[in-house]
């Protein structure tokens, strides 16, 4: 035992000073140059996103006579068909997202943990909903779906689940590749954890961000999807916007588009907060910088 010395010195907490030194190493002039580049890129990207939004917003407050009015916004809630269409889109987005996550997460885990050879097949499969035209997907689903489902708008949720599959799977795949999931699973099982415990307490917390990223994309996709809903002749919110634009005030239609964007952003923000909200910090920070490597 006498030979065992200095164990308290094994390991330690890496101080953030290294990052600071690396930054300083850039030099003041180089850093300033970098900051300019970053600012320039930020301005270009910001303009790309914000200019169309600004134009739409400005248009929604304009009148046909060249004046300004808030009537497009105030009349929106009372516009014919607005409420049902909005709620239908929200409901379909929710159902499609839950369906996609429930199907894709277990499937992705099984592929990664038990059938890794299928990963290549899944990689190809995830491209199919993107490259196959919507009408083909619809015809396929109509052929396969039970009659009771065809009679309801939830057929659309199934179609959106197919569309959302690549986004959720890819996001999950990236999350699984970022952790040594095989070792984590083995560690959990060796400590007494069954598959469900391992999934719920070990894998899920580590994949929360990846799953939420996929969920965010799936929600956005389902809420804004137009082609399939239009072909299936359901009055979802995007379909309502187009129909309303053709028969009523285009300003109201644009206001509805911006409102839809706002709702999607709020949903995404909520999901993001859900993803990052449970991060815990150490309860104590003793000798954080005092230990050796």
């Amino acid at each position, binding site marked *: 035992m006498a030979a065992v010395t*200095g164990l308290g010195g094994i390991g330690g907490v890496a101080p953030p000073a290294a990052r600071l030194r690396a930054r300083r190493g850039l030099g003041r002039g180089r850093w300033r140059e970098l900051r300019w580049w970053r600012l320039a890129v930020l301005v270009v990207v910001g303009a790309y996103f914000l200019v169309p939004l600004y134009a739409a917003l400005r248009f929604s407050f304009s009148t046909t006579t060249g004046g300004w009015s808030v009537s497009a916004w105030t009349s929106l809630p009372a516009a014919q068909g607005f409420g049902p269409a909005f709620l239908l889109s929200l409901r379909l987005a929710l159902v499609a997202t839950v369906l996609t996550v429930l199907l894709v997460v277990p499937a992705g885990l099984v592929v990664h943990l038990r059938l890794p050879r299928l990963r290549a097949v899944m990689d190809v499969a995830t491209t199919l909903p993107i490259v196959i035209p919507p009408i083909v997907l619809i015809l396929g689903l109509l052929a396969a779906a039970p009659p009771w489902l065809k009679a309801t708008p939830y057929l659309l949720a199934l179609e959106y689940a197919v569309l959302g599959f690549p986004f959720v799977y890819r996001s999950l795949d990236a999350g699984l590749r970022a952790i*040594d999931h095989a070792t984590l699973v083995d*560690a959990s099982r*060796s400590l007494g954890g069954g598959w469900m415990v391992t999934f719920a307490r070990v894998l899920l917390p580590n994949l929360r961000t990846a799953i939420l990223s996929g969920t965010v994309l799936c929600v956005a996709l389902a809420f804004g999807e137009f082609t399939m809903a239009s072909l299936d002749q359901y009055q979802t919110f995007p379909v309502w916007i187009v129909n309303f634009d053709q028969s009523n005030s285009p300003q109201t239609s644009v206001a509805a588009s911006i409102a839809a964007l706002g709702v999607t952003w709020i949903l995404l923000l909520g999901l993001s907060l859900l993803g990052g909200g449970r991060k815990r910090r*150490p309860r*104590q920070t003793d000798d954080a910088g005092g230990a050796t490597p």
Partner: protein
Amino acid sequence: MTMVGRTLGRMEATALPHGGNGGTTVELLGLSRAYGSLRALDGLDLRLEPGELVALLGPSGCGKTTALRIVAGFEAPDTGRVLLDGDDTVALPPQRRNMGMVFQGYSLFPTMTAEDNVAFGLRLRKVSRTERRRRARELLELVGLEHHGAHFPHQLSGGQQQRVALARALAVEPRVLLLDEPLSALDAKVRVQLREHIRALQQRVGITTLFVTHDQEEAMSMADRVGVMRAGRLEQIAPPPELYAHPATAFVAQFVGTMNRVPVERRGDHVHLLGRRARVRPGSTVAGSAPAVALVRPEGLALTPDRHGEGIVTAMTFLGYVTRLEILVSAELALKVDRPSVETGGIAVGDAVRVELVDDDVLLTAAD
């Protein structure tokens, strides 16, 4: 007193799983496992006595990790049995085998603190929150990390993470401790410190331990017995000094430590080499009169400065107590000779020397 000594002293009455109760007997009987046409294990037999630390050593692909994973329950053997105190565990899933395992890769759960990691197995066993916190803290103290319980894995160094993993494995009071190259990802200095730590803990706890490594220094320094594996079978299992001094086969001789290959002239059951007659040791693997070489350790050769000697010193490396000399005997034969440094003071590179065999028996293997 060292830190481990102090912590072990403090922990004696409380935290130590088993408290040195002698551990469990582990028997691997006729284990075979094939992956397609590749036979990873080919009838492996191994017995670990209670409280013993056995290291499985071998080159990549020899089946040592497969054996460990079968004991852990992560893989099933094609044939064979794994007995713990006589009970066959092959049909049990890993979560019901009650084994502690430390992995090669960092296996701490990233979203849990060190303390939560250690308490994880206890939580699954429905130990009360207060009790599992107490035991987790005691085990962290045992591995010298009592002040790091609130840190997440990414806030710990590699060595610290492996110590937490060790504490986590011991927390569930396992019947057997399995170590799957737990030090291979660490730098050299931490590796040496941690292996001493693990060995001290294992001896104090008295837990039967199976340790897989490809690092012979680790195996030799930690294990009660070292098993050298080749192609899914045990070539030899013996205490480290015996394995080194009396390798049972040419493979073991060449795999463990440094070995010179010296051409021999065969005469019946004797051979001639370096101007001396020597017996052929059992375990030699040369058929009939096929060309053979003797396997001789660097310390199994002596040298004497001699102007008419057949060897020329081409290099000298000071290694502390010993100095390694490289001797060019002929165009085909260069030898490594280890001699106490105090004896090599009068020798310099370029000197002529006479090289002699120290032992009177040698292990033979087929010449290339």
